[in-house]
Each structure stands twice: as structure tokens, then as C-alpha cells.
């Protein structure tokens, strides 16, 4: 078969490593608007819901019963269901309608009604909705910190760095479940070394997770998974009532909880019952709300590749974030699991949450290498830190992190690793050596760490879990070992646990260890000039990426002393002989000494003059003062030249061959890509100019095309041009120069 070279290349692109599938509603492979989704309806009789979304009370499953009894506000339900779905959609996109107005009505909407509202909205309108309906005013971010070695020093170091980078929450998990207490301990100590007030959790089986929280090793939990059909829920070994009880149990110990849902899980478990992913997610979210969870982690989470295989999948994921916000839930918006091979696709998807902002833009930014991520690979990893910081800086959008320097990272990583070393020593756990600390401080991932003997570690973990030691013992260990500041941070987490302020919706601790939630930092967005926008110190911090240089630094390497061999004689006159006039920019060989490509001005002059001489002609040199523009400089040269041929040369190296009969902005040959020009090119330019002057047949000079040059050098180009323009004297005529040089 004939093969297109272009299609062959396209087939190898990252985007074509993905799987795409056509919708199949019967199997739940449809993101929204399944033909089997019910139409919205609600019948209330004597204060009870007797029918919902086309199902009579006697046919309700456990989820319907839970939603009807716990989640819906019956006071507003009738009015809420009567309002046309398109009216809701318009209110969500309307900057003049504050979130509270809409939230009151939404509280009375059935799952099918919620889904029906989304039907009327495109992605842009949903982003407007999310910006407004997000419950906390200030956006934030969560990090994932794991490593395949489950090395405590590396976990602590990475957690410390993540905390310093500004993540408000850090989540870890386990490869071997028995490591849970040690992994939780390492990120607790690590985060509180990096910044006091970062919330931490360890994602494990529900009962084990509660035990970790009871020991004070974690301050939040978000793995309370819910599903949109009764069968899937039961397959997950829970009911809405058991999950709600678990939520209360966590809260009774002063631990923040967030449920987990997300599109695709029901289809993946083979129990979608023909319903669309979004409709099932609406049911999940009402269960979450009814259970009294302050928030939810959704955005498809670990199932993300499934909606992304289907048409409209990325839109549906934004829709589920929006639905959760509409219901007054804190949203940790996904973007965590590996969703695409393509950098373009994964970044485009991120924008749907990044631009409007979410309570947590990621429910786990992988603050570690992809290979170390035990959550199924990160969609954004430690390798993408700089990219992410630049996105914040580009758009003036707060993505919840900040740039740090290498020195800051090394220092905090070492301190975090030393702190966990001290805790292990004080608690009599298997020793962490100084060599392991040194490795963790500089490590990128597990591959950079020495091997640890896992057997005694696991035995110690079992004993630690079974024993009485808790975070009070950890605080004391840190005090004894001289880590008083880290101890104080964990102690303050304990006091915050007593005050329980961070059980309110969407709570985090800010840089000053003050709680910030939807109660004292409620989203007040009502259009331009309102709501959260990064300013002041925060915006300065976002701008200050270590890669940013001072403007002076671009020009300084090109500044030099005036060339002693280049002497100004007097005003330049028009020549009468067959010659080439080389016209220089005002700073050439004066204020500036080298081209943008680093060639000495002296060498460039020699190359051009040599080229002219090789064709048997002589070049005169003049300096143009009234302009720094390349065409204008070259045009002056052409008009002063006896042959009518001139070469214009700017200090940064841009050159033109001009001819006096042409319009000023026209030319014979233009060499705009000065960084690519070599001495050989300049010699060829001299030759060609001479050949034009002689009327000889001339092949234009071949120049290497480097389309990246402008991208790399545009700042330097602008600043060098500005420096040359500083030397412009508008009224000063061109001056004749003498360059002390003889042809070889």
C-alpha cells in the first residue's frame, strides 16, 4: 500500500499512542447524555420524596434512598426542579449572579437535573462557572510524594521540598501496605520541616487509614471512595451509611476528610447500568454531600484515561468539577493520574481547571519522578516543576506553587531527611545512615538512593503500628534531637486538631499557619475586579523564577572598548569610483564590541573587507549616526557608494546589501538571522556586494535557517538594538572611517 510520509510521521506522535473508542452507552462508555439517562423529575408528598428522576420510591436503590433522605433540600426542591435547566446554565455563566444565590437553588436539584444543566454549557461557560462556584476564594494545590523504594529519608526530603514549593496538602501511599505508618510519619516530619501547616495523608485501606489518623500521623483523608450505582458501591465494600459513619469517625478525631468519586469507575467495574458517566457522578456527588463530607476529589482521578478515550471526555471531567462546586463541596480537581502521552493534550486539559482555579487544582501533583509515583504515574511530575511555574508567571494565575532555588531545595531536603533520621533514632527504629541523608538531599528519585534492608523496617513498622507511640512521641523525639522548630509545627497541628477549624469546608493553612476555608475565605467572585487574583507579594514570588535574568546581563557581554584600529576621519562624501561602501551602526566597534553571535566586530570587518578585496574592489567604511535601523544604515551606504552598492551592518551583526535605486526598505540581500552568521558568511557578503558593484552574475549567499534563534535570542536582540539606539544622534551626518587593515 502507498504510504504517506506525513501520515507515517503522524502515526508516531505521542497523541497516537492513546486509545480512542466510539461511545457504547449500554456498557457505560459514554461521558454524558446517555439515551438511558433519566429525565429530571421529583415528587414530594407530605415532606417525603416519593419519586425521583422517573423512579418511584418503592423502586429506589440504596443510593436513591440516601440522596432523597440526606442530600436534597426539600424546602427549595420544588422551586429548584421547576426552574428550567438552561436558566441555571445561564446563571452559572453570568458574572452578575453570586455563588450563594445559585447554591441555594442547586441544593434542591435531583441528579438528573444537575446533569441536565450541564447539557446547556460549553467548556468556556463551565470555566466561568467553576471560577465563581469554587467555594474557597484562594486556589491551592496538593502534591503526591511517594517512591518505589519507600525510603523514609527520600520521602521526608521530597515532602519537605513539596512543602517549600507551596503545596497545601501532601498525600502519600504505599507499595507494601505494612509501610503505611512509616510513610505517613516520613511525610508528616518532612512537610512540617518545609512549612508548618501543610496537611498530610496516607492513602490506604479505610480502616488502616483511620488508625493512622488516630495516631496523629495524618491530618486528612481523601480515599473515602463512592460510586454511582448501588452494585459498584457494594463491590467497593461500603454503603453510603458506612462511608458517612467513617466520615464522622474521622471528624471525631479532628481529621479532615474528603470523599473520592470521579467519572469512569462504574464502567470500569462493569456496573454502569447504561447510564452516562456524568449522571452517575451526579449521584456520587449527592451521596458525598449527604454524608456530610466537606469535599470531594473528582475529575476522574485514576480512571481518567477512560473518559479521555471517549468524545467529550475532557469536557465531562470539567463538568464533574463544576457540579461538585455547585453543591458546595471542596473540589480536588484531578489532573493527578497519567492521562495522556501528549504534552499538548495534558496541558490543554489542565487549563480547564488551572485558569478558573480550583480548591486544589491537582488532587496530587506528582512532586516526584514519574517512576517513583505509586499512584499510577503523575500527569505532571517533578520534571515539570519549571514548566508549571512558568505557566503561573505567563498567565498571572495562581497555580498554588512557587519557584524555589537549588540551594533552598538542597537545604530543606537535607533538613527534612535529618529530622526523620533523628525521629528514627529517638524512637529506636532501624537507623538511617548519614550516607542515606547525603543521598536524599541531592536525589531526584529512588534510583539515586542506597538500598535499605526492608525486613527490619517492616518489622519495626508492624511494632510501631501495634504500639502506643503516636505523634506526641514524634514531637518529643524532635525536641530531644534539636529540631525544636519542626516539633513546634507538629505541635501546632495538634492544637489545630483540638480547635477543629480545619474541618470546615475547603480548609487549608496559609503561609502564616492560619486556617483559610470557605467560612473565612469564601469565594466572592462576581466578575472583573472581584474574587481572587494574585497580587502584591504573591505575584512577585510567582514572577521570581530563578531562570529570570536582569536585563543588563544580556548586554554586558557585548560591551567593550572602542576599536583603536577604527578611526573617524570626518563627514563622509559620495564616492565616484567603483566601490562598495560598508555602513556601520552607531555603536559598532564603539559602545558594543561583539555581534549577538559573539563575533568580534574587528573580525567581522576583516571578513567583509577581505571578501570585497577578493573580488578586486575596495570598500570604504562609514558610520551612520542618525539611525540604528539596518535598512536605513544600508541605504546610506548605497547612496554614498560610487557604484551604488552598500552594505549595512548593525552592531548585533544583522546585515543587508543595498542598492541606491531601490526603495529604502527593499534590498538585494538581507541577513536578518545574525546569530547564525559566521565569518565565512560575512566574507561571502563582502564578495557578493563587490560582484553586484562589478555587475557580475551573483548567487545570493546561502544562510543556515535557524527558526529557533529568534525564540532563544529575542530579548538579547531587543536589548542590543536598544543599546545601539542609545548612540543615535539624529542630526549628525554619516562619518568617514579608516580601518587599519591590509588584505592578506
Amino acid at each position, binding site marked *: 500500500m502507498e504510504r504517506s510520509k506525513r501520515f507515517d510521521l503522524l502515526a508516531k506522535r505521542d497523541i497516537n499512542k492513546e486509545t480512542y473508542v466510539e461511545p457504547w452507552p449500554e456498557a457505560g462508555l459514554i461521558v454524558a447524555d446517555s439515551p438511558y439517562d433519566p429525565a429530571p423529575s421529583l415528587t414530594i408528598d407530605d415532606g417525603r420524596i416519593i419519586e425521583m428522576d422517573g423512579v418511584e420510591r418503592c423502586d429506589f436503590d440504596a443510593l436513591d434512598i440516601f440522596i432523597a433522605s440526606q442530600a436534597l433540600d426539600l424546602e427549595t426542591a420544588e422551586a429548584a426542579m421547576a426552574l428550567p435547566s438552561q436558566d441555571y446554565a445561564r446563571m452559572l455563566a453570568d458574572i452578575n449572579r453570586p455563588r450563594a444565590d445559585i447554591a441555594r437553588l442547586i441544593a434542591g436539584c435531583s441528579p438528573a437535573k444537575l446533569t441536565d444543566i450541564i447539557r446547556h454549557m460549553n467548556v468556556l461557560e463551565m470555566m466561568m462557572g467553576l471560577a465563581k462556584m469554587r467555594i474557597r476564594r484562594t486556589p491551592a494545590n496538593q502534591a503526591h510524594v511517594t517512591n518505589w523504594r519507600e525510603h523514609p529519608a527520600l520521602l521526608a526530603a521530597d515532602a519537605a521540598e513539596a512543602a517549600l514549593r507551596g503545596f497545601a496538602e501532601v498525600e502519600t501511599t504505599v507499595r507494601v501496605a505494612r509501610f503505611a505508618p512509616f510513610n505517613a510519619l516520613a511525610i508528616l516530619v518532612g512537610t512540617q520541616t518545609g512549612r508548618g501547616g501543610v496537611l498530610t495523608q496516607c492513602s490506604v485501606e479505610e480502616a488502616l487509614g483511620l488508625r493512622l489518623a488516630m495516631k496523629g500521623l495524618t491530618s486528612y483523608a481523601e480515599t473515602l471512595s463512592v460510586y454511582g450505582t448501588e452494585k459498584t458501591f457494594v463491590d467497593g465494600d461500603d454503603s453510603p451509611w458506612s462511608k458517612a459513619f467513617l466520615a464522622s*469517625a474521622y471528624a471525631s478525631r479532628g481529621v479532615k476528610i474528603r470523599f473520592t468519586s470521579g467519572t469512569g469507575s462504574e464502567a470500569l467495574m462493569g456496573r454502569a447500568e447504561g447510564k452516562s458517566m456524568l449522571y452517575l457522578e451526579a449521584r456520587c456527588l449527592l451521596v458525598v454531600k449527604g454524608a456530610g463530607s466537606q469535599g470531594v476529589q473528582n475529575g476522574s482521578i485514576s480512571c481518567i484515561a477512560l473518559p479521555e478515550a471517549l468524545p467529550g471526555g475532557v469536557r465531562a471531567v470539567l463538568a464533574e468539577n463544576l457540579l461538585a462546586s455547585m453543591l458546595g463541596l471542596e473540589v480536588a480537581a484531578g489532573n493527578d493520574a497519567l492521562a495522556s502521552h501528549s504534552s499538548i493534550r495534558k496541558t490543554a486539559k489542565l487549563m480547564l481547571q488551572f485558569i478558573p482555579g480550583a480548591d486544589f487544582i491537582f488532587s496530587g501533583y506528582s512532586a516526584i519522578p514519574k517512576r517513583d509515583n505509586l499512584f499510577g504515574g503523575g500527569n505532571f511530575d517533578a520534571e515539570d516543576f519549571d514548566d508549571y511555574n512558568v505557566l503561573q508567571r505567563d498567565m498571572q494565575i495562581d497555580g498554588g506553587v512557587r519557584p524555589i532555588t537549588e540551594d533552598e531545595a538542597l537545604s530543606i531536603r537535607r533538613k527534612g531527611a535529618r529530622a526523620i533520621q533523628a525521629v528514627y533514632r529517638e524512637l529506636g527504629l532501624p537507623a538511617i545512615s548519614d550516607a542515606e541523608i547525603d543521598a536524599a538531599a541531592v536525589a531526584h528519585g529512588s534510583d539515586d538512593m542506597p538500598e535499605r534492608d526492608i525486613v527490619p523496617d517492616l518489622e519495626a513498622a508492624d511494632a510501631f503500628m501495634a504500639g502506643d507511640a503516636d505523634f506526641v512521641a514524634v514531637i518529643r523525639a524532635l525536641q530531644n534531637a534539636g529540631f525544636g522548630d519542626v516539633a513546634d509545627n507538629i505541635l501546632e497541628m495538634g492544637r489545630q486538631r483540638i480547635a477543629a477549624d480545619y474541618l470546615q*469546608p475547603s480548609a487549608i493553612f496559609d503561609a502564616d499557619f492560619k486556617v483559610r476555608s470557605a467560612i473565612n475565605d469564601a469565594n466572592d467572585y462576581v466578575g472583573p475586579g472581584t474574587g481572587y487574583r494574585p497580587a502584591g507579594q504573591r505575584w512577585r514570588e510567582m514572577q521570581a523564577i530563578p531562570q529570570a535574568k536582569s536585563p543588563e546581563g544580556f548586554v554586558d557581554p557585548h560591551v567593550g572598548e572602542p576599536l583603536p584600529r577604527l578611526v573617524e576621519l570626518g563627514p563622509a562624501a559620495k564616492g565616484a569610483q567603483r566601490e562598495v561602501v560598508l555602513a556601520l551602526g552607531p555603536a559598532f566597534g564603539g559602545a558594543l564590541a561583539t555581534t549577538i553571535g559573539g563575533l568580534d566586530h574587528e573580525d567581522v570587518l576583516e571578513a567583509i573587507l577581505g571578501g570585497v578585496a577578493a573580488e578586486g574592489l575596495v570598500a570604504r567604511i562609514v558610520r551612520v549616526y542618525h539611525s540604528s535601523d539596518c535598512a536605513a544604515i544600508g541605504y546610506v551606504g548605497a547612496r554614498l557608494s560610487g557604484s551604488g552598492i552598500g552594505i549595512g551592518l548593525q552592531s548585533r551583526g544583522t546585515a543587508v546589501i543595498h542598492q541606491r535605486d531601490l526603495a529604502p526598505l527593499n534590498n538585494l540581500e538581507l541577513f536578518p538571522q545574525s546569530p547564525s552568521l559566521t565569518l565565512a558568511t560575512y566574507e561571502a557578503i563582502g564578495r557578493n556586494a563587490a560582484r553586484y558593484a562589478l555587475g557580475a552574475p551573483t548567487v545570493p549567499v546561502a544562510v543556515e535557517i535557524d527558526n529557533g534563534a529568534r525564540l532563544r535570542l529575542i530579548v538579547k536582540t531587543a536589548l542590543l538594538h536598544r543599546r545601539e539606539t542609545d548612540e543615535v544622534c539624529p542630526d549628525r551626518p554619516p562619518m568617514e572611517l579608516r580601518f587599519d587593515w591590509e588584505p592578506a
Partner: protein
Amino acid sequence: MTETMSDYPLRDSKADELRTHSGRALSDITAEAIAAGALNGDDLRTHADTLRQQADIARQGGYPQLAANLGRAAELTDVPNEELLKIYELLRPERASYNELLRLADYLEATYGAKENAAFIKDAAEVYKERNLLRR
């Protein structure tokens, strides 16, 4: 007394009144007390009254379901860890009979005054019976 949203955060506004689960004053929870070995985990746990205050705040903030959850949580502060884990296990699907759930509800109410939790578990018992989620 009903707390209002303006009292939030309690960590700042009620620092002098907050009590730990063990009955200590928040101001007793100091680095020195920890160093002296005078505090244990129970001294760094929240008191039922504090959770009820937070429930008031959540209700006023427009989060009634969260308020109900915090109310149930307040009732559970006195339930020992191991018992909490057992109750959770019993509430999972197909773990308990209808009567076991009713007995559990009565026990919680009688032992800990956990009225809300008892009602909640009784509701669950009815639904589990209807939806065949009881132990077989």
C-alpha cells in the same frame, strides 16, 4: 451557646476557652509540657463541645449536611478507637443482621448518648433490609 461565623476560627477567637478531649485547656498544650512527658495523645484530641461549635458554624455557613456530620462526630469523641473501627466494620455491606444493627444503635445511645448516630444506624438497618445488604 450557638457560635457564629464571626467566631471563626476558634483557634484565634476562643483560644482561652477551648478544651481538649481530656479536659485540659488549650493553653496547657505547650512544648514544655510535651518535653516533660506530661501530655499524651488524648490531650491533643478535640472535645465534643468544640465539634458542636464547628457544627453551628457550618450550619450558618450554609453547609447543613456537614453540620450534621460534625454533630454525629461530637457524639463519637468518647467512643474508643477500637470500638469505632468495629462499628464501621458492622456498617459495611452484609456484615450485620438487622437486629445486630438495632442493638448497636441502642448501645451507642445508652452508652455514649449518641442519639444522632443511633438514629442514623437505625435508618441504615431499614435500608439494608429493603436492599438486601444485611448479612446472609
